[in-house]
């Protein structure tokens, strides 16, 4: 099979495509190894460009979604045609702007984005309101944990520090990171029992050390925790710490009642179908109903599409997740969706021994990192000037003697120290 080496961008470090004022440009996405394996396995069904050219792997760098033909199908393995994504709402091309570290964290903002633009729009405040608690209620695979993690990422992108009470000891850091959570600014509470954890969370709230507290309640939580839950919710509201509760479906009535009273926003999540790639389930469609909303009209509903990072895929080392809100927020759309609904119990297919799972090729949705003290200078285009290479002789031009100027003070607050100058000396010529 002949391949045409193709680079979608003339310059791999200068992405092309639509750029919105005030938003950072999307980053190019390397997919070399993923595509090589797909091609080896699927042959003609492998991912290819809309114009039919296949990609010369592993050297090509693809800039997803910025070529004119990218909206054409990417081959049989495409999860979702890119034309289904509305550039106006896709979280990748319209990332939430982050505050600069010189200013206070953007916590005065009304709400924390859930990571799903259509849900944010539905809530009336652009996300989960900061000054009221929120509850996500749903069954085991309803998607509430994904939604919570995306919200955590949103809170961190706005400059917040988050604590997560891991009541069931099921927190997966790798998944969290893949969803955009910055583990550096996350504390995980894993107490011996949940009541102790609620007290610990209360102490954390008292110290005003965190901005968002997530309570991931385990199923069959003891009734004796009702008073603690109420107290914690009231305390958090008083202190101004945002509370997000993940409520399992089978919570006792009294506890459910306590949470219902405390929350300003309640979302009910129900999985309405699986997303399949062949026989494999690679994601789900979830209906989110706003059952209570102090900040907007209740009763509205939206359908979200959640894609999983396949466990087996980690061993093969490929890809990232695409989460996109369905455009057209009505249940009727589900009827024409590609989801097949809950799998019926039917005669299983012939066994496929030791088949590696189908890889996913998706686009990163993670919110951008907080902006740096100074805006990054874009990397200088390589071809127009000789790259500095440690193996070659240093060119005298840029390595001129420093002028000795002091670093410019960074705009900051608090105990920021100016980045000090450091000098390194080598005692003997050694290879770096």
């Amino acid at each position, binding site marked *: 099979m002949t391949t045409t080496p193709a680079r979608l961008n003339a310059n791999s470090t200068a992405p092309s495509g639509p750029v919105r004022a005030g938003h950072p440009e999307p980053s190019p996405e390397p997919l070399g190894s993923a595509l090589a394996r797909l091609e080896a396995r699927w042959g003609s069904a492998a991912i290819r460009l809309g114009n039919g050219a296949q990609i010369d792997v592993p050297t090509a760098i693809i800039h997803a979604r910025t070529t004119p033909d990218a909206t054409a199908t990417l081959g049989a393995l495409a999860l979702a045609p890119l034309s289904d994504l509305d550039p106006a709402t896709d979280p990748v091309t319209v990332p939430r702007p982050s505050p600069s570290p010189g200013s206070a964290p953007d916590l005065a903002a009304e709400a924390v984005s859930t990571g799903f633009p259509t849900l944010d729009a539905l809530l009336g405040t652009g996300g989960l309101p900061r000054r009221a608690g929120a509850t996500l209620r749903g069954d085991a695979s309803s998607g509430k944990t994904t939604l919570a993690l995306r919200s955590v990422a949103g809170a961190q992108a706005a400059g917040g520090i988050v604590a997560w009470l891991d009541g069931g000891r099921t927190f997966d850091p790798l998944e969290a990171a893949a969803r955009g959570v910055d583990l550096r600014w996350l504390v995980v509470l894993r107490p011996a029992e949940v009541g102790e954890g609620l007290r610990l969370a209360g102490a954390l709230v008292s110290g005003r050390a965190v901005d968002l507290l997530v309570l991931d309640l385990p199923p069959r939580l003891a009734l004796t925790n009702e008073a603690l839950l109420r107290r914690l919710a009231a305390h958090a509201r008083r202190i101004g710490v945002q509370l997000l509760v993940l409520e399992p479906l089978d919570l006792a009535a009294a506890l459910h009642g306590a949470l219902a009273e405390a929350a300003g926003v309640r979302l009910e999540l129900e999985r309405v179908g699986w997303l399949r790639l062949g026989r494999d389930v690679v994601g789900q469609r979830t209906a989110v109903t706003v059952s209570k909303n102090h900040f907007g009209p209740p009763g509205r509903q939206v359908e979200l599409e959640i894609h999983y990072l396949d466990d087996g895929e980690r061993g093969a080392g490929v890809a990232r997740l695409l989460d996109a809100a369905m455009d057209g927020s009505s249940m009727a759309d589900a009827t024409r969706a590609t989801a097949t609904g809950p799998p019926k119990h039917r005669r299983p297919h012939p066994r496929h021994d030791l088949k590696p799972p189908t890889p996913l090729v998706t686009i990163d949705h993670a919110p951008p990192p907080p902006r740096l003290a100074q805006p990054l200078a874009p990397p200088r285009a390589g071809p127009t000037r000789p790259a500095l290479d440690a193996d070659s002789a240093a060119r005298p031009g840029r390595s001129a003697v*420093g002028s000795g100027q002091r670093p410019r003070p960074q705009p900051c607050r608090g105990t920021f120290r100016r980045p000090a100058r450091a000098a390194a000396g080598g005692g003997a010529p050694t290879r770096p």
Partner: protein
Amino acid sequence: MAHRLVPEATFLEADPGAYATAFEAVLEALAAFTPAIEGETDPTAPAFGRALLGIEGLDRLWGDEATLTARARAAVAALLPAAARAGIGNTRFGAGVAASMAREATALVTIRAGGASEEAAFLAPLPIRLLPAPELEGRFALFGLRRIGDLAALPRSAVVSRFGTLGGELHDLARGLDGRPLRPRRPIERLRAEAELDPPVDQLDSLRFVLHHLAGALCEQLAARGAGAGRAVVELDFEGPGPAILGGSRARGSEPAAPSGAAGPPDSTATSLRIEQILPEPVAQADLVERLLVARLEATTLTAPVIRLALELDGRVPQAGSQLGLFTPQSANAARLDWQLASLAIRFGATSLWRVRIADPEASLSEARTIWAAVGEGTALGSAGEAAMHQPSGKRAP
């Protein structure tokens, strides 16, 4: 092998001791310029032969950067077998890369003074193998990442989910963010103060009062030296023979574990008690030190009056250089959070609060992908540190 290839060559016996001594002399000579100097004197270490100097604010003493560098090179010229190469940057990583690029013709390479953007711009076109992670070099190549700028251009979360926490740290370096502080060679100062308690004291409030004054006095001395305490030790002597304490901490609902941040369980004999506490960061603020030590005392049951209380603080120079946390909006709260978490870990138990890092996202077994570390084990949240690694179940991480 070498003998076989070049039989006529003269082979010298390695003398690591001599190399170490020689480089020690170099570091001593450079210490005359600044107390903020770090250097590796173990000849077997990869960083041997490299000296790192914090030169912030030295221009008034030694002239501009070029002049300072020339003087430093002159000071060590006779001590080194060859001319020293030098680099100047805004971060230790940048300075190190700049120094490695210096050559005979241009013995000093300087990164433009400024911040992360200047550093990142300098590093962007350079080969990715200059990043301090040879184990990831092959995988970077698989993803088509050849220059440092290629890595810097990717979203950090994507890098972490693909290459783990180490990848995230390399991403920070690539973007000109290097939070690793200088570790000065200056010896640790140990300051100690003690008080005889007559009559003996058996109330915690009274002990707190004494501790308050001792901490105040010692922290004042540290501050005057420009140093901060990284570790605190409290010693209590008790009245009378026989067992005086129950010892240990009251970790609820679990085995009595060493309180978080402790350098070991309280060392108790019949008549004395010694409590060590690692502090989240080097500080000279008495109230912070006192609060943490009082929390430790509250977690310890005393059954005999105390006749003597001693406080010892290990002083170090406070962190110099840029801090990673200062480049994110969370940085302003990070220090306060660290202290609160350390305090909570003492109160609720060392296994209640955790931070986590991604070790190997490619590991086939899920349990091998991440490493959990109990908060308060000596490192700040948000920074990469060498915390003790324990799985939440108590097993050691692989």
